[in-house]
């Protein structure tokens, strides 16, 4: 059913001239990179100019490079027939499956889609499926997609979505080249000038040209007398068309004057655009199509007569290929680092090499501390002064005083804040690379690295860090491989006097599931506990929260709230939010009295306001029963808390 690719029709036997160079280049690009270069590739030309030859050459070229490729060549008529046969046999689905598994679909003569609505729908579906799967489609037609009568708009846009190239009629030089090659293939020898005479006759397509050659070959075979140029002219019925001097004789207007004009202009442009310019333009088209920046080539075009054009093009291609290889390598190591514009600019190859080297060395820096937790914003009091002074000591003498520093304490006391604050301060040192992340992220990265078979890269990534700060180290419990890796890193860091900081909810020796060698190492530095916030801490936090809401601090209020016992800073934040929210809902200033009312449930003395109010994102109506505290989302997490949750 499917026509085989005719081995005679290969790229090697295709004579390239100005009129078809673009199409051939595009064809080669597609054969070399099916599915990526131009998809779909749409080739159109008048009859007999080499569409089918090029299509088959493309298929064979791809087959030669990638022998396993499943290539299907067929004309549209064959496709239609096959479809009808399949439908008649009740095998419509099998037919679809068969074509959806094709790696490269070559369809000849798609102009016959005119008036075939069901085939158009079928082809649209197939095109979509193939394109989605990244499979190559190449189509030929005798006219551009938009001029195929009655063609579905979606098909037009799909066909035009890749690259649409045309093959023009061959110019004189190409015609001579074609005749010479064909004559050689037939082992026919002609007197000098004969083939040139035939070529000069401006046959509209290659088939006619072949017909003329055939007649010459046949004549010469029968007559045994070598044909000369004049004889060839007579044989082919070509009269002398030399123009006399003076005003040219003009014939009556013929049918397609514009077509003839267009053809002439095409030939003239083809001749006039110097060959090197055409080559450069092609290279620009090709590499631009693949997404590379081509200023280097474009710069050539702005010169009058640049030297070594082909060397530059070849050099550019070499650089682009190198970039392609680098990008592929980088993508395998670190998908995040690939796709940089750096890998698309051959003029910055050195930068790209360096970037690739950095990725290879794991230089993509490990995750750093979050900027949301500056040290200056950390409220200090008796309850945490040990931890904070230890942190300051670590910041001043990283790796020398307390290594490791383990911060322990319940949730909501500011361990993560202090950890990130230390990280931020450490990162200020020149050349510092601070790895500061949650243990969960650390584990996830390790698993991804094991999965992607790039442990070397992972090792390099963390070994280059000057400090390692892990939040919630207890999450490592029961994860042997992570503990093993941490153990190695731990030793390396301690030997080099690089700082290690961890947080855990309890003293390390109370965390179950950690190997003794890890526990003992964690205990070996300083374990500093963060206690429930004392009054000073509470007051500082309170002042800061009120300042953030632009509420003037009232001494009575500060005293009242700061005196209330809370077990964590986070709980304190919740309390303040409740008070502020209530104040906004009742349109009252934030006072100690109000706070007491809200927190201890005493009735408010003020009258109620009516209407809707906006409080920290909640619209509250005082008309309904929503004033009931239980129904209010008072503990809406503040932005800092939300960021913490997203980080995890």
């Amino acid at each position, binding site marked *: 059913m499917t026509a085989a690719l005719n081995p005679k029709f290969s790229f090697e036997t295709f004579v390239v001239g100005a009129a078809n160079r673009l199409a051939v280049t595009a064809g080669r690009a597609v054969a070399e990179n099916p599915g990526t270069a131009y998809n779909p590739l749409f080739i159109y030309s008048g009859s007999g100019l080499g569409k089918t030859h090029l299509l088959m050459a493309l298929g064979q070229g791809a087959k030669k490079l990638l022998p396993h490729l499943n290539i299907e060549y067929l004309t549209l008529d064959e496709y239609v027939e096959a479809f009808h046969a399949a439908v008649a046999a009740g095998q419509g689905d099998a037919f679809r499956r068969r074509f959806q598994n094709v790696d490269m679909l070559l369809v000849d003569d798609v102009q016959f889609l005119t008036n075939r609505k069901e085939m158009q729908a079928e082809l649209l579906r197939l095109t979509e499926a193939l394109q989605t799967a990244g499979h190559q489609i190449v189509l030929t037609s005798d006219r551009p997609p938009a001029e195929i009568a009655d063609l579905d708009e979606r098909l037009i846009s799909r066909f035009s979505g890749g690259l649409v*190239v*045309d093959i023009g009629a061959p110019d004189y030089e190409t015609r001579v080249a074609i005749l010479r090659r064909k004559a050689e293939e037939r082992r026919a020898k002609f007197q000098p000038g004969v083939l040139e005479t035939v070529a000069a006759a401006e046959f509209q397509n290659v088939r006619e040209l072949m017909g003329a050659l055939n007649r010459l070959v046949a004549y010469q075979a029968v007559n045994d007398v070598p044909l000369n140029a004049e004889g060839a002219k007579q044989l082919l019925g070509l009269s002398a068309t030399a123009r006399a001097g003076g*005003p*040219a004789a003009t014939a009556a207007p013929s049918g397609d*004057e*514009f077509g003839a004009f267009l053809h002439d*202009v095409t030939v003239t442009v083809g001749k*006039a*655009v110097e060959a090197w310019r055409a080559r450069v333009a092609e290279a620009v088209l090709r590499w631009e199509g693949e997404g590379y920046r081509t200023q280097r080539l474009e710069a050539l075009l702005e010169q009058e007569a640049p030297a070594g054009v082909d060397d530059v093009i070849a050099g550019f291609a070499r650089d682009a290929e190198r970039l392609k290889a680098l990008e592929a390598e980088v993508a395998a190591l670190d998908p995040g680092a690939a796709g940089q514009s750096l890998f698309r600019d051959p003029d910055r190859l050195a930068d790209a090499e360096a970037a690739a080297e950095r990725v290879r060395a794991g230089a993509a820096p490990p995750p750093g501390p979050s900027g949301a937790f500056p040290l200056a914003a950390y409220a200090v009091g008796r309850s945490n002064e040990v931890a904070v002074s230890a942190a300051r000591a670590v910041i001043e003498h990283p790796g020398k005083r307390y290594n490791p520093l383990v911060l322990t304490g319940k949730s909501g006391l500011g361990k993560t804040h202090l950890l990130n604050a230390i990280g931020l301060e450490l990162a200020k040192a020149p050349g510092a690379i601070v790895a500061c992340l949650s243990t969960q992220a650390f584990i996830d990265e390790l698993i991804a690295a094991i999965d992607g078979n790039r442990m070397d890269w992972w090792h390099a990534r963390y070994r280059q860090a000057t400090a390692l700060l892990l939040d919630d180290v207890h999450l490592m419990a029961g994860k042997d491989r992570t503990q093993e890796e941490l153990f190695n890193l731990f030793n390396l860091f301690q030997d080099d006097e690089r700082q290690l900081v961890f947080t855990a909810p309890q003293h390390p020796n109370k965390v179950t599931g950690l190997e003794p060698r890890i526990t003992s190492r964690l205990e070996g530095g300083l374990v500093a506990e963060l206690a429930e916030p004392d009054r000073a801490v509470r007051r500082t936090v309170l002042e800061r929260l009120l300042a953030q809401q632009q509420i003037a601090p009232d001494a009575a209020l500060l005293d009242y709230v700061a005196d209330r016992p809370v077990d964590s800073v986070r709980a304190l934040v919740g309390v303040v939010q409740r008070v502020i929210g209530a104040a906004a809902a009742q349109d009252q200033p934030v006072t100690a009295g109000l706070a007491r009312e809200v927190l201890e449930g005493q009735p408010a003395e003020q009258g109620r306001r009516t209407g809707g109010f906006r409080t920290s994102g909640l619209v509250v109506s005082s008309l309904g029963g929503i004033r009931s505290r239980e129904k209010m989302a008072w503990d809406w997490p503040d932005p800092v808390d939300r960021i913490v949750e997203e980080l995890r």
Partner: protein
Amino acid sequence: MSLVNFTTREITCKIVYYGPGRSGKTTNLHYVYGRVPEARRGRMVSLATQTDRTLFFDFLPIDLGEISGFATRFQLYTVPGQVYYNATRRLVLQGADGVVFVADSQARQLDENLESLQNLQSNLLELGIDIRTLPFVLQYNKQDLPRELILQAADLDDALNFRGVPSFPGDALHGRGVFETLKAISELVLKRLSAGSTA
């Protein structure tokens, strides 16, 4: 105007039809317009100011599509032929890549032809263009008129074509010579591509 832009891969040819009043310049454009497939041509524009009509000319853009990787466009202009529209003529001539001189073949119009030709030369000179380097062809229009009214192409060559540029007898009304003329000027213009020159 840059004739060929290798960076954006565009070729733009501005061709101006010049000649005395009523010699058939607009008729040339109309004929071309009628032969160009609809998708390839822009609207033919005839510009006139509302007040004094000193600025008016015809403009026909033709899109030839992609040729050798270049988006190729032709822009055909006519100038107003009447003597007193010289400012407009000079304006239209600006940036022309080639000029077609449409002469009126009628014997009694010979002086008008000569006058217009001289006017072309002086206008080009003022724009700093050397007519010897500018692609230039002649068309002897109205050759369909009775023989006794017109001069033959050879005579017109003697009278007007002293630079020996390509010349074509024409009958723009019926299309004879129109595309030959356009083809000839296009080839001259496009051949300058090889020098990579800008016009």
